[in-house]
């Protein structure tokens, strides 16, 4: 099965990011395909490398990064949602005159068209959120 994943809530505040991660990991381990993970609403906060949870807690951002490295997973942060919430890559920093970036490795910022394309291309879109 070819899945597309949508994450609608921020990490730590809400279980959605953990559930999405665990679902995606389990699906990939079972040999399914994941076309794309799309982060929307506060879900874009999964994509900042500046996240520093306590040492005895899980690091959700790093979990995504490691999963993406292992399976060449496409992690996409919605640009409009990211701009509202201060998730910045080099291109966005330049366009909007920001003095820093915070995008985590393996994540990329792109448009909502990426979500629609994923929904068209996949067999099943799975939405994680409230």
């Amino acid at each position, binding site marked *: 099965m070819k899945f597309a994943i*949508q994450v*609608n809530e921020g990490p730590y505040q809400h279980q959605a990011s953990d559930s999405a991660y665990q679902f995606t990991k389990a699906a990939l381990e079972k040999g399914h395909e994941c076309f794309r993970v799309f982060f*929307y*609403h506060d879900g874009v906060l999964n994509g900042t490398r500046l996240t520093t949870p306590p040492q005895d807690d899980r690091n959700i951002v790093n979990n995504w990064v490691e999963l993406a490295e292992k399976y060449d997973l496409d992690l996409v942060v919605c640009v*409009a*949602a990211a701009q*509202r919430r201060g998730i910045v890559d080099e291109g966005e920093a330049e366009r909007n005159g920001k003095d820093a970036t915070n995008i985590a490795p393996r994540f990329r910022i792109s*448009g*909502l*068209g990426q*979500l*629609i*394309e994923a*929904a*068209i*291309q996949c067999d099943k*879109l799975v*939405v994680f*959120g409230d």
Partner: protein
Amino acid sequence: MSDKKQFMFLNRRAPYGTIYAWESLEVVLIAAAFEQAVSLAFIDDGVYQLVTGQDTTGIGMKNFSPTYKTLGDYEVRHMYVDKDSLEARGLSVDDLVVVPWEDWETEETVDNIVEVVDSAKLAELLEESDVVFSF
């Protein structure tokens, strides 16, 4: 690109208080550009999104409710409203926006694509959808 899919956007929340309704609308507008069969459904507090006469000046938020009236121009063909959710909030179809629709090629017109349906019908519509976006 694959064949046209049935997209259903399930809107469950009040228009203000959280950003879900507004960011859902942004996805709907993009989806239209991909030439998919797009329908919207409004349940629970989501029915408030379609109420006419919204005034947001007191809360400093952008009033995006006029956008719903234009969705017919974005090739949204159906906007379903859950009957029980509407009645539980003391609302009727008369309180909701009217959204006209026109097929540019065939010139077929529909006066209002907003349709009140019961929950059994809504369940059927969700079952028939290829993709359900839940906001």
